[in-house]
């Protein structure tokens, strides 16, 4: 089992009249960002990620989101750059660069390659499509999203694995001279992770390329379905999925007593789901971002907007794990048996959780949870 500490770097301060805004993305005014508070937060969050190495995590994760209080990382590569020389052992995972939003995907290839060379090959390169609202942010046509993702991916992989200049022509990208300097250090290229919602197309694509899939914000039952689908897809492509290909991202919170754990977690988790993930549906699902078939599937899956979940529902359905260290260890052991993941991404700071609580949560995870799960073989994983 590999343990990663995932960060979203939320900007937790919201005005008293926050309820008047229909979303915390895109149109939520940036006057609500105070750069002086941001200065403090960036340093606390980066301290947390650096501390993860000291605590024995295998990796740390940064990500990309735009125009929102949900997270302050429009560029994961800049964040990874800040961490590259302050760490020496952990993997640094950018989960991930939003490929279709780029008109120049080669810039991603170059930046990830720099980081890979500087860190001596500690980079994990996540590729994502970006979420629907970000197609408004970049005026990028959501109807082209999947094509652009596939083309940009193919271009980046070829740019990393070719040692001679080549010309690239695809529907959305044309570059007569591709010849990136530096080339990545890891061969043939850094590992690729794809987080997200488990559409059939995505899971089959991930399995075909033998990449790592990471489930995000889903009830346990749905996560189980996705991870089983990934294993089945790997089988279709003629191999057995490596546990490390199977990842899950989970908000986790621990305190000495169950009551205290829930008291704290409720506040921070509700910030994440009701403030950070406050979306306007028309922005979140622009036309073509999902195919007609996938949209039909989602509308019949019984998922509701994050803002409508109560704390109890989130806990009961498995969106987050909260309790004493003993309770959390027991729950994660059960989940490990059920889901069979070999890559565990933890969200140990989430929402408006202050620095001291995040640090304590990380320490408890490292001392009370990691030793029990590391090297553990799941009892009944698999489809």
């Amino acid at each position, binding site marked *: 089992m590999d343990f990663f500490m995932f960060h979203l770097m939320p900007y937790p301060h919201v005005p008293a009249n926050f309820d008047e805004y229909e979303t915390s993305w895109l149109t939520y005014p940036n006057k609500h960002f105070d750069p002086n508070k941001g200065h403090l937060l960036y340093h606390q969050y980066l301290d947390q990620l650096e501390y993860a190495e000291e605590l024995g995590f295998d990796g740390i994760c940064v990500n990309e989101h735009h125009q929102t209080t949900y997270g302050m990382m429009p560029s994961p590569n800049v964040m990874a750059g800040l961490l590259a020389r302050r760490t020496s052992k952990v993997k640094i995972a950018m989960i991930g660069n939003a490929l279709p939003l780029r008109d120049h995907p080669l810039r991603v290839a170059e930046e990830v390659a720099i980081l890979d060379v500087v860190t001596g090959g500690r980079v994990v390169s996540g590729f994502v499509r970006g979420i629907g609202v970000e197609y408004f942010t970049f*005026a990028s046509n959501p109807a082209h999203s999947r094509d652009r993702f596939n083309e940009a991916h193919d271009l980046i992989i070829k740019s990393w694995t070719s040692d001679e200049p080549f010309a690239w022509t695809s529907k959305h990208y044309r570059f007569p001279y591709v010849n990136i300097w530096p080339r990545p250090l890891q061969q043939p290229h850094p590992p690729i992770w794809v987080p997200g919602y488990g559409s059939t197309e995505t899971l089959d694509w991930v399995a075909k390329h033998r990449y790592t899939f990471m489930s995000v914000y889903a009830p346990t039952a749905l996560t189980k379905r996705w991870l089983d689908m990934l294993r089945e897809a790997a089988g279709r492509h003629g191999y057995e999925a490596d546990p490390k290909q199977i990842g899950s991202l989970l908000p986790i919170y621990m305190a000495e007593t169950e009551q205290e754990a829930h008291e704290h977690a409720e506040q921070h988790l509700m910030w994440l789901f009701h403030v950070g993930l406050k979306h306007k549906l028309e922005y979140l699902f622009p036309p*073509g971002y999902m195919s*007609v078939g996938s949209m039909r599937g989602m509308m019949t899956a019984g998922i509701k907007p994050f803002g409508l979940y109560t704390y109890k529902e989130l806990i009961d359905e498995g969106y987050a794990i909260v309790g004493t260290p003993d309770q959390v260890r027991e729950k994660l052991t059960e989940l490990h048996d059920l889901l069979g993941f070999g890559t565990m991404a933890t969200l140990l700071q989430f929402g408006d959780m202050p620095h001291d609580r995040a640090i304590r949560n990380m320490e408890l995870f490292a001392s009370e949870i990691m030793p029990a799960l590391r090297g553990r073989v799941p009892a009944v994983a698999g489809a």
Partner: protein
Amino acid sequence: MHESSRIDVGGVGVHLLRGGPRRDDGAILFLHGAGGAGVWMPFHGLLAERRDVLAPDHPGFGGSDDAEDVIEAMDDLVYHYLALIEQLGLTNVDLVGSSLGGWLAAELAVHHPELFRTLTLLAPVGLELPEHPIQDLFGMSPDETVAAVFHDPSIAAQIFPAEPDLDFIMGLYREKISFARLAWSPYCANPKLERRLHRISCPTLVLWGEHDHLVPIQHGERYVERLPDARLQVLPGVSHAPFIEEPAATAKAILDFVG
């Protein structure tokens, strides 16, 4: 009375509604907007009392096939309609387009001015006027859309089911994807269209709803300014879909113009 048929245009199956007396002196070709495909409305019927009216569905809309590999942008749709006009042997066409269809109509007339006897643009998009932005339809909720398109939102209840089923919602989603392919960015515009409008020599009527909450009337004024032979007529008491809100007044304005 009208008939519904399917024709093949360059490999794309097109759903065509047609009604009214066939005459030797040409037909009205009506091009729908982002909504309103596939339905013969009272407005069509009023035009068809006097004229031969053809109302095809754009590829990706109504009963026509999806054709995402060949209709990627507005210029592809222009060539699709040039093929349709040629295939049906239409000449002396009185071209009428609403909103997105108005933009399409202007592009067609720029491309082949000699094909068209008259041009009627119903609150067309197509021009890029940053100082008079078109409201963002893609970001609107269903209620916001109704409030923008109709001056009297209760009109929408006559068109949309009170409790739409999944197939109805998916149908709208499919058309929104087709719309996005044509109009996501630049939003509802071809920045080059304005400087090409001088090519349109036929008489043009630009109709605008008095209370258009979606596309500012300055777009209509700019069309009239750039077109060699055009006038602007305002239809009172309606928003962006006058042919739905006031079919009689809209049909009369068009018939008075085209004769």
